[in-house]
Each structure stands twice: as structure tokens, then as C-alpha cells.
């Protein structure tokens, strides 16, 4: 006897970019699905959908996660940040976004939101990292256009700026 699939929903409560929200979601949804379809957070990109490329990266309780391999129902009680949350009150960009522009660290832009949120996690530790450490911290993202040097430089420049130090040559 073939069993019929019974649709299963759950109400999830969480904080999205500073606002408490709730939504009834299909339990089969990934966090990427919920953020894009229910909240129009289109900075969260669907890339590989198997946790390899980092395009769907979001911050959950301050740590970077690939939202494509994170069940939407797991968002319950969490604080989630997407690129949209970096906008200032008048729509101004954050320092790290501006640095990506200044360093030409963007070409097609598909990997950029994911990279920037990992950069936010790095910057918010308030630590000074070596180039080797930064490369490792950024290694969960694939960029198929520019290569990684400009991205590394954008993060490094912002790191030194936030630390109030001159960037070594």
C-alpha cells in the first residue's frame, strides 16, 4: 500500500535582521527557501544547494551557515542576519560593502552576499588576522569570476580600518 504524503507545517519564530518574525513553513523547506520565498531576502542566493559554494550563507547567532543545508524549522528562536540587514537607516551601505566596491571585489555579484556575511563574522571578532588566517576563514566560498585576491584585500582593508591601524604594505 503506497502511503500518501501528508503535508506537514510548523510555525517558526525567529529574529530576522533585528525584527521578530513568525511564519508557518513547510517542514521540507530549507532556510534558503524560507528566506527567499517568505521574506524576499533575495541576497540569499541559490547556488549549488549542497553546501559547497557559500552563496546562500547567512549568519545564525553570529556564525556563518550555508542556509541551503539548514532546515527552515531549525530557525526557531535564532537570530538570523542576511545582507539586507547591513543597510543603514537611510539605505547607506556598510563599510565592508563599500570596500568590496572600492577593491573591485565584485564582478557578477552572485557570491558577494555570502562572502560579505562571512566577512562580517570575521570583522565582528575584533581580532587581527594574518593573510593565511583570512584565506582559511574565507575558504568556504567559491567565486568563479574575479579570483580571490580583491576579496581578500577588501576584507583585510576593512579589518585594519575597524582596528584603527594602518594596513601593512
Amino acid at each position, binding site marked *: 500500500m503506497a502511503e500518501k504524503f501528508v503535508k506537514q507545517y510548523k510555525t517558526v519564530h525567529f529574529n530576522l535582521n533585528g525584527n521578530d518574525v513568525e511564519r508557518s513553513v513547510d517542514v521540507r523547506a530549507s532556510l534558503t527557501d524560507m528566506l527567499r520565498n517568505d521574506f524576499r531576502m533575495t541576497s540569499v542566493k541559490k547556488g549549488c544547494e549542497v553546501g559547497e559554494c557559500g552563496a546562500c550563507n547567512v549568519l545564525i547567532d553570529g556564525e*556563518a551557515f550555508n542556509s541551503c543545508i539548514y*532546515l527552515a524549522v531549525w530557525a526557531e528562536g535564532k537570530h538570523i542576519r542576511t545582507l539586507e540587514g547591513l543597510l543603514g537607516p537611510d539605505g547607506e551601505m556598510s563599510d565592508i560593502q563599500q570596500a568590496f566596491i572600492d577593491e573591485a571585489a565584485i564582478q557578477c555579484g552572485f557570491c558577494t552576499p555570502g562572502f560579505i556575511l562571512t566577512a562580517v563574522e570575521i570583522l565582528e571578532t575584533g581580532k587581527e588576522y594574518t593573510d593565511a588566517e583570512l584565506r582559511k576563514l574565507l575558504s*568556504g566560498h567559491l567565486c568563479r569570476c574575479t579570483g580571490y585576491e580583491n576579496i581578500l584585500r577588501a576584507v583585510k582593508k576593512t579589518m585594519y580600518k575597524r582596528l584603527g591601524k594602518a594596513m601593512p604594505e
Partner: protein
Amino acid sequence: MYDMKALYEAGSVDEAVALRVAHPDAQIIAGGSDVLVQMREGKRAGAELISIYGIDALRGVSQEADGTLRIGSLTSFSHITKDPLIQQYINVLGEAVDQVGGPQIRNIGTIGGNTCNGVTSADSASTLFAWDAIVELTGPDGVRRQPIHDFYLKAGKVDLHPGEIQTAILIPKESYENTFGHYIKYAMRNAMDIATLGTSVNVRLSADKKTVERTRIAFGVAGPVPLRAATAEQTANGQPVSQELAEAFSQAVKADINPRDSWRASRDFRMHIAVESAKRAFIESVRLAGGEL
């Protein structure tokens, strides 16, 4: 959307065990970085899932009264690496799991999932074998503890009984006391890659740092499940620290391992890097223990 038949969420170990008993065919999902990917690829399509991800009681590292280190099965790789107890007593485990996948994978991946998968390439596995870790399993009949060597049955298969979930990995004091270790992952890339070979060595030196009191070595991908190299261990135990010993120790691993040809690497190449990794990891472990050679 994932192609799943149903999702059951456990908020506690008791609930997880009850769900396991009620749904014996359901797949356990911890962090999901394997299960969800397999589901996406169609391998587990249509499965029922029991999510244990919400059981916060299974997160974190603590020390029991007898000194045993207790690593909750849902502790993520990144939290293991950052943990002060791990850094103090078994730093090599933190370094090993810091080489899994990439940063986001290390935030979601759990040590319980890494071991319950039963794959030989798991970056935590060789170190857990080399430190005689004990797996704690909780089921309808209570808690049982099993040495990790007996937990791995064959490739992809671990000794998880019906109704059970893994609740902790335990590192006995006897394993970590005065013991220093090093892990070498050999892979084609530095990030987002699976080990071609994983080698974990640890040593305990005599008080004058001249003699190897005890050495342990385990490999991942040198056989269908992670394995210890007993001949190599016997070669080094009780011997004076020297470069010659490092050489003899590393050559001896050839008697213990049985790697295979795969698209990732040939058997011969794995044999070669096993010897070289054993030597380097031994030398580094001796150095960390304060010895000179």
C-alpha cells in the same frame, strides 16, 4: 524543498529515543551536512527524518569527576576547536576537525554525525581512534559505552542499535594525560576536500623526555574503517627517542594498513603518504611533548 516523507523533531534525548522506537526506519539528522546533501542527490529521497539538532543538552565539552572529557555529540567542529578543555588536553582533535570542509560546514557539522556516518575519511575519526575514545549511546534500555574501535563495524556501518542515538564521545584521562599528538590530513585542496589519507599520532614521553613511554597511531582511509597501526606502536613503545626510531616507526605502519585504489588515489600512493605522514606526525608529537630528536 527536500524530498522527505516526514520530519520528527526531538527536543530532548528521551524524546529522540521515543521517536526512534516509534519510527524505526527513520533517518537521524544531526547537523544535516551529510543527510541533506544525500537527500538532495536522491539517495535518501522520500525518507522520514528524526531531527536531533534541537537537543541543546548534547552540545558542549565538559570534564567528569574522574577527569574524563565529555564531548556532547552535537558539538560542532568549530566549537570543539575553540573549546578551552580541548585546547588544554587534546588540542590535536581541535586541529583535526578544523580541517573538515570549510568554515560554514564546521559550524553545522557535528562530531556525532561525523562518527555515526561510519566513513573512514572522517577527520575526527583517526584522532578518536588514536586516543581510545569511547562512544556513549543512549537507547530505550539506558546508556551503554563502547570503545570507538568496536563502534565502527564496516564502511558506512556503525553499531547503533534500534532506538539508540549517540549522546557523547568520551576521552579517558588515561588517554590524554601527559600525551601530545599531531594530525596530518593529506588532500588535494586545503579546503572543501575529503582526506586522501588522515594520520593521527600521539606520544607520551618519560619524565626525562628521552624515552617513548607510549605511542599511538591511527589512520583514516587506510582501510574500510579507521584503524590503529599496532605493529608501529609496538616498534616505538619503550624505545629511546631518535630519528632512527621515527624512521623505523613509520616503516612499520606498512604491516598494519590496507588502503585501496580509488579515483582519489592509488593504493601505492596511499602507502607512501602513510609512511611519510606517520614519520612527520611522530616527530611533531615528540616535539610537542618536549622531546628532541
